[in-house]
């Protein structure tokens, strides 16, 4: 077998995704696994697999030496880091290169240049990329704040220079409010932090998280592939992504793409990367950071633009030019629902365990990227994402309707998932009207869909019939051991997590 080999320094969904790209390119994929992943799908799909240690990531997936040794053992000449783990670790990228292997990603220099939030902002500012306007030194007086507001617009945020944690911050909506607010902020800053210094920064209300996909190759070409709308976040984790963003016009897209390419060019970017922006309601946008890796949400761009970003990364790492020759136009609309092994009815508590049944949705407009199949165990030790449902429709409305259909068709048993959460969210009027911001989910409470009277009756009848058949001994019972356990005794005390419905 003389096909080149590529080692995937990752697990789960992204490892399976990279394995598929390898196969499409005639590259032989090599997996690594901890004790918790011995029979995981990414291992069973690979041509070779190397054990790298016990379940904790710090003893397995995060140990550079083990990963490089695994590549050496199996003759892999490429290493793809996926996302998470060591994907944005410049030192690991350098170790890979120093070991004579090819790193499938941007150069260690690009990674570290974008790795520091402050240094990266300075770097891209020099390239003309807008960042959120703010004073770089404390304001001497209210007049200086008014001047800043004059230049950058309102509302402003007054912040204690020595502060943090939201304390001493005040929103100012017009020049008239400045003098009183400045005085109050100074006095609060003094009492909280023993330092009255206060500065002003633009306050971007109801902003969106919109990011631009970029791709650079070793010929120095860098292109942008439109935006992704990622405003729906829970605990700063993206939950649902869209491409395109309904808030972005073609004209705005062109401007954001131009700026994103400039940011990438500022660090001589090669491979797939993402420039994240904060988009204000008035159409202004500001650089947040650049992610120097493939992102979880890359498939929405793939299905709308008709590209394979992971395959392009491998081509580019081989020294080939990217295979995208012409400017691509977006077609239709895509949504990605990240299906997690979490129970939305219990505050999204993790729900690891064995997947006793898995019905993946299928049919028109449905792409599923998952790292599990029926019989797999979702381990406790890693990120709990099971699958990504990537749904395409000719417009946002069709994509949403198809997403509901796909989520309703899916079945997962043995563990709880966030599928019911998405089914509820896809009915939310503000979401449907695309009236969202990064704060949207903060003020949103999950309410399980209530079963209809008819559904409740059906559930009770099915339970009764199953019990009846078991009592007759003539039929298989509910899966997973109820057959031996028999009917449950009344529980004397409900567990603390209470009732689920």
């Amino acid at each position, binding site marked *: 077998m003389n096909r080149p080999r590529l080692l995937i320094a990752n697990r789960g969904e992204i490892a399976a995704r990279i394995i598929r790209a390898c196969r499409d390119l005639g590259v032989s994929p090599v997996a690594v696994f901890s004790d918790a992943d011995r029979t995981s799908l990414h291992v069973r799909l690979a041509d070779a697999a190397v054990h790298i240690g016990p379940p904790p990531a710090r003893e397995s997936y995060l140990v550079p030496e083990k990963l490089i040794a695994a590549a050496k053992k199996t003759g892999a000449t490429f290493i793809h880091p996926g996302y998470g783990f060591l994907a944005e670790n410049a030192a690991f990228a350098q170790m890979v290169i120093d070991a004579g292997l090819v790193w499938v990603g941007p150069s260690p220099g690009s990674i570290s240049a974008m790795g520091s939030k402050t240094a990266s902002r300075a770097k891209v500012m020099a390239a003309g990329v807008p960042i959120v306007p703010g004073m770089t030194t404390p304001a001497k007086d209210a007049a200086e704040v008014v001047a800043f507001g004059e230049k950058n617009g309102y509302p402003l945020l007054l912040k204690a220079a020595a502060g943090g944690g939201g304390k001493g911050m005040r929103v100012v909506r017009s020049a008239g409010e400045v003098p009183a607010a400045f005085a109050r902020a100074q006095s609060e800053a003094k009492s909280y932090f023993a330092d009255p210094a206060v500065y002003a920064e633009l306050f971007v209300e109801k902003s969106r998280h919109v990011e631009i996909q970029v791709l650079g190759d070793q010929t120095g070409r860098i292109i942008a592939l439109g935006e992704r709308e990622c405003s729906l976040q829970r605990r700063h984790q993206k939950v649902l992504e869209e491409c395109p963003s309904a808030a972005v016009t073609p004209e705005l897209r062109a401007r954001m793409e131009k700026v994103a390419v400039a940011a990438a060019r500022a660090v001589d970017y090669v491979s797939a990367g993402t420039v994240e922006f904060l988009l204000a309601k008035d159409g202004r946008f500001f650089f947040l950071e650049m992610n120097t890796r493939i992102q979880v949400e890359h498939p929405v761009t793939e299905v709308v633009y008709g590209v394979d970003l992971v395959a392009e990364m491998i081509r580019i790492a081989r020294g080939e030019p990217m295979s995208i020759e012409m400017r691509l136009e977006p077609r239709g609309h895509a949504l990605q629902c990240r299906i997690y*092994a979490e*129970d939305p*009815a*219990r505050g999204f*508590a*993790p*729900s*690891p365990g064995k997947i006793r*049944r898995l019905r993946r949705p299928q049919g028109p407009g449905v792409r599923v990227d998952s790292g599990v199949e029926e019989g797999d165990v979702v381990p*406790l*030790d*890693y*990120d709990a994402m099971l699958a990504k449902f990537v749904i395409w429709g000719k417009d946002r409305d069709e994509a949403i309707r198809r997403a509901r259909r796909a*989520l*309703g068709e899916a*079945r997962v*048993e*043995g563990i709880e998932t966030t599928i*019911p959460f998405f*089914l509820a969210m896809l009915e939310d009027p503000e979401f449907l009207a695309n009236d969202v911001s990064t704060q949207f989910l903060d003020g949103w409470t999950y309410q399980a869909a209530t*079963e209809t009277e008819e*559904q*409740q*009756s*059906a*559930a*009770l*009848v*099915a*339970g*009764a*019939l*199953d*019990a*009846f*058949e078991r*009592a007759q001994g003539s*039929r*298989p019972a*509910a*899966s*997973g051991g*109820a*057959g031996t*356990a028999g*009917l*449950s*005794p*009344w*529980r*004397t*005390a*409900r*567990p*603390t*997590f*209470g*009732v*689920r*419905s």
Partner: protein
Amino acid sequence: MKLRARLPASGPKGDVRLEVAHGAPSFRVQLDGRTLAGEAAVFRPGIWSLVFEDGRQIEVSLEPASDGALRVQFGSAILTFDLQDELTALALVSSGRGKTKRADVVAAAMPGRVLKLMVAPGDVVASGQPILVLEAMKMENEVKAPREGVVESVVVAAGQAVSAGEILIRLKSDG
């Protein structure tokens, strides 16, 4: 066969009487006196397709929940309830075990590792007070007291791995 189901909803819907007059394939079940009939078939163990007399079809998956209840999934909704044949239910009720008492135990809602214990035996806790931190899937989950009371015993130690349903802490019984 007569059964009793206890649904999570409060109110008159909470307890339901079921009687299976005829099982699959041509079923006839009384539900609080109302007769539901149709045709039922098992697709895979625990997965039923019911076709009611009016043609309505529903695929229902049954599996035991980690706490011993029955978890029933159908399309977008999940319903969890207790189900018991009537004689057993009556026996349990008469022995006092059938009443919904206030929780005396705090069990792990998921497998994990105990990161931190915040109470000791004898501590007075308020309802909703964090009592320990359970780490699962890279996330720290605060476990809270289900009611006010006094900690009787702490069953687990910091650093210990626990499985779902495992008892973590006992509260002194209030009755």
